[in-house]
């Protein structure tokens, strides 16, 4: 990024001349992302909808990406800048790895992403905010970690689970009631799918699983073995099970105890 700033500044975000006014309803926005840790790793999932004001701009957008071998990054907010930020972030991590012959520490990667968001601050002030969520496997603690960000580049480490985007409040409520620290990988994915369905239930900008077109959330799992995107059919099976259960109880699973 520093090299680009010197040699090809036009490739970097955050240096463009701005117009004025609030553009937030004129360009596509991505919506809800959830992340949660489980023993042995961390999972990130995102719905597939992008909205432009009241219009659904895209039904099958992808918002969860591998950042490098041992981390995943996802974004909520302005889709164009979000995708650009993810690409730049991926290139930076790979570039560092090749130049130095070693990967950045997980905290190093998280800090780097902060700097990228800060570069987008002028845009954020005009409603073109990008808020990423970053999660990775930390070899020093042998477990997953989650980092959230604010539009000014503030970086905050989250414990257990977190969500960002317009439906994040509803998703976080669901995660609060369903999440347990000892969930297996598959159960953890199920909990996250449930939380995304809850988000879509109450937030018009979040897309639920599209049962007609068979468009399901993107789920990325990061463990000691690296990043793995769950195959479509595995996600489909979990979504189908959750969907069938909601025919009995549309609000989803109830908490098992009241205390």
């Amino acid at each position: 990024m520093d090299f680009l700033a010197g040699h090809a500044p036009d490739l970097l975000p955050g240096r463009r001349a701005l117009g004025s006014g609030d553009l937030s309803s004129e360009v596509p926005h991505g919506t809800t992302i959830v992340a949660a840790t489980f023993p042995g790793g961390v999972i990130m999932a995102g719905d597939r909808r992008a909205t432009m004001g009241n219009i659904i701009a895209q039904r099958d957008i992808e918002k969860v990406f591998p950042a490098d071998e041992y981390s995943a990054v996802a974004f909520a907010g302005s889709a164009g800048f979000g995708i650009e930020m993810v690409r730049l972030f991926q290139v930076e991590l790979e570039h560092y790895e090749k130049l130095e012959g070693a990967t950045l520490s997980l905290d190093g990667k998280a800090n780097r992403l902060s700097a990228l968001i800060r570069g987008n601050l002028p845009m954020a002030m005009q409603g073109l905010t990008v808020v990423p969520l970053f999660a990775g496997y930390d070899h020093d603690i042998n477990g997953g970690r989650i980092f959230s960000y604010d539009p000014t580049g503030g970086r905050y480490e989250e414990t257990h689970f977190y969500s960002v985007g317009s439906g994040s409040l509803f998703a976080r409520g669901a995660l609060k009631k369903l999440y347990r620290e000892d969930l297996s990988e598959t159960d953890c994915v199920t909990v996250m799918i449930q939380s995304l369905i809850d988000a879509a239930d109450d937030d018009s900008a979040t897309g639920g699983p599209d049962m007609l077109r068979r468009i399901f959330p993107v789920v990325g799992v990061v463990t000691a073995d690296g990043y793995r995107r769950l195959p479509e059919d595995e996600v489909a099976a979990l979504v189908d099970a959750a969907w069938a259960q909601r025919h009995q109880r549309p609000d989803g699973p109830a908490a098992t105890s009241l205390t």
Partner: protein
Amino acid sequence: MSVPFYVSPEQLMRDRADFARKGIAKGRSAIALQYADGILFVAENRSPALHKVAEIYDRMAFAAVGRYNEFENLRIAGVRLADMRGYSYDRRDVTGRALANAYAQTLGAIFSSGGEKPLEVEILVAEIGAAPSDDQVYRLTYDGSIADVQGYAVMGGAADQVADYIGEHYSEGISLAGALRLAVDALGHDGTEVRQLTPDQLEVAVLDRTRTQVRKFKRISEATLETILSESRPAEEATEPADAEDKKDTADTGASAEDTPIAPPADDAPIAPPEDPDDNRPL
């Protein structure tokens, strides 16, 4: 004021070339060899940290001999060029030809400019394609001249002797283990005495087109190297542990090591990420 001596341009260039050649011949050799599934790089290098072979991009690698600080600068420039192109356009638009051209320009400009000394380096830019026939290996010398290489290339040290040895024993479509054995033997045949190189003296990496990951470059760790080499040890050692492995046609007569089929080691398929040569998790 004294009048400077006249030196003819021919003489000047010859002197500069001699200077560079001497510098390059001082070091140890590095080899690039095409095998069935990709390109193998073997360099004699006692340092585990200062690499002669490195990843440039998804399907491209770089190997160099000569002065470390000089070729390290070239490597960094190459990685930057490749990453910047890949980011501006697409990953598929980063090609070995473009990179080799850029290197040729740089080396040529430095060689013929009066002020600087020529770089004492020789480099290889290798790119694997979908099939062995699509592989490309470019060899660049200190003066910026560029050559398209087929099969194998040797640079640095007693390059001619090592290349002769490989030339005698190389066959197209050689296996990885066979190619590795051949390269290691060839590096030992660089003088009047034949040396037997041990894994800790070697730096080995491959561009492996069978890797499922986008990035095809992989370093082969010392432990893996040890396994492969001990399985294909020719003549002397291979005769005494004559296991009941009759399936393996033990035609271990002398230097025919490369055509004896050698089972690839178990950890060969899921290849280690380049950043950590010791773990064999997929990238």
